[in-house]
């Protein structure tokens, strides 16, 4: 991750930081349902789409970051349901997948928390790949 960009105003930093916190709070509330944190960041994104460039950019990055783990978590979620409610059995592959996805979620959680703290300080934190996609999606209005 790299930091650049001029320091934004305090209320901008707060809003931008909140976009990351939304996903963390939603994760704590609806942990077993992978869609909850995605919906939370989406709502925050929609609510701030007319905000400043800094806020919009970070809302977009927060949304994209959730989207990346959403697919991994969803697959694990449905796999778990199939074990609980159908005759699918618990296999070594399932445990390996859950552990791998779990570790990716921990990594994502720590990264999101770090980003939320840094953005609150007014620093512009870019995620690899996702930051570039956010650049393409969010255009600065001059």
């Amino acid at each position, binding site marked *: 991750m790299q930091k650049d960009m001029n320091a934004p105003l305090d209320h901008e930093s707060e809003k931008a930081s909140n976009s990351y916190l939304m996903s963390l709070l939603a994760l704590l509330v609806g942990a077993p349902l992978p869609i909850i944190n995605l919906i939370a960041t989406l709502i925050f994104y929609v609510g701030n789409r007319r905000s400043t460039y800094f806020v919009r950019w970070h809302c977009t990055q927060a949304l994209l970051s959730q989207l990346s783990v959403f697919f991994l978590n969803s697959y694990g979620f449905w796999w778990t349901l199939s*074990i609980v*409610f159908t*005759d699918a059995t618990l296999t070594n592959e399932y445990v*390996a997948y859950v552990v791998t996805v779990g570790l990716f979620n921990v990594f994502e959680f720590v990264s999101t928390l770090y980003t939320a703290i840094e953005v609150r300080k007014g620093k512009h934190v870019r995620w690899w790949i996702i930051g*570039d996609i956010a650049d393409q999606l969010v255009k600065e209005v001059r």
Partner: protein
Amino acid sequence: MKSNSFWAIIILGGFVGLFFWLRTIDWVGMFNIEQHTRDTEEKLGDLFWEHIGDEGEQITDSLTVAVMDSMVHRLCDANAIPRERIKVHVFRADVVNAFAMPGGHLVVNSALIEDCKSPEQLCGVLAHEIGHIELRHVMSKLVREIGTSVLVNMTMGGGDGGQIGEVVGVLSSKAFDRDMEREADLKAVDYLTVAQIDPHPFADFLYLTGNGESEEAFEWLSTHPSSKERMEYVLEEIGKRQFEVKPLITASTWEKLKEKMGVSDTLSLN
């Protein structure tokens, strides 16, 4: 600065690599999952058995026990199935039925034994039900019909009598799916031929009892796929095999067993 594709490959490679490394670990063995599954099955089996045991009259005279035991023993010994895994119970009931329960419990109604024309036919039905037990069809069917969470809850004492009765009803009256029935039929042929028991009477039983008899009385057949179709693929399977046949029990013992099925040891006035 590295390009995005570089980081994409690193992240994707990291995920895939971690997953493939983790899947080499025997998690199922490490957490003793097989044993836990078996324990759950045993608990469920005992729970259902307690329910059934309270409901009907079990036939436990020495002749019935000895004959059933000798048949199951022969099937198990020849096919390397631990004998203690299969627990046979004979019940006095008018419905021609036999069904397997979790934990290796196998229930046979007296009407089914009465309806069999030979001990080989009865042995064929036993082999079919043992097939369901050994192929783990029983738990698959229960999980599909009832759901794992309800079953686990039951083993923890969460199920009431009505719920347990409902599950037992599913086991005794609802069919396995077509593929499972076929698999159990073919497994039965395998068990019978390896145990040197003539499998032809089993095919006859499937066909004869499925034709010209009241369907209501033949629950075992009415819940299974078409008798003709089953007889055909069972005969086809028999045709592929070479086997020797040794007698099961004497004709007189068989007749005595059938007589036992028709006589109630308890007086019922209702």
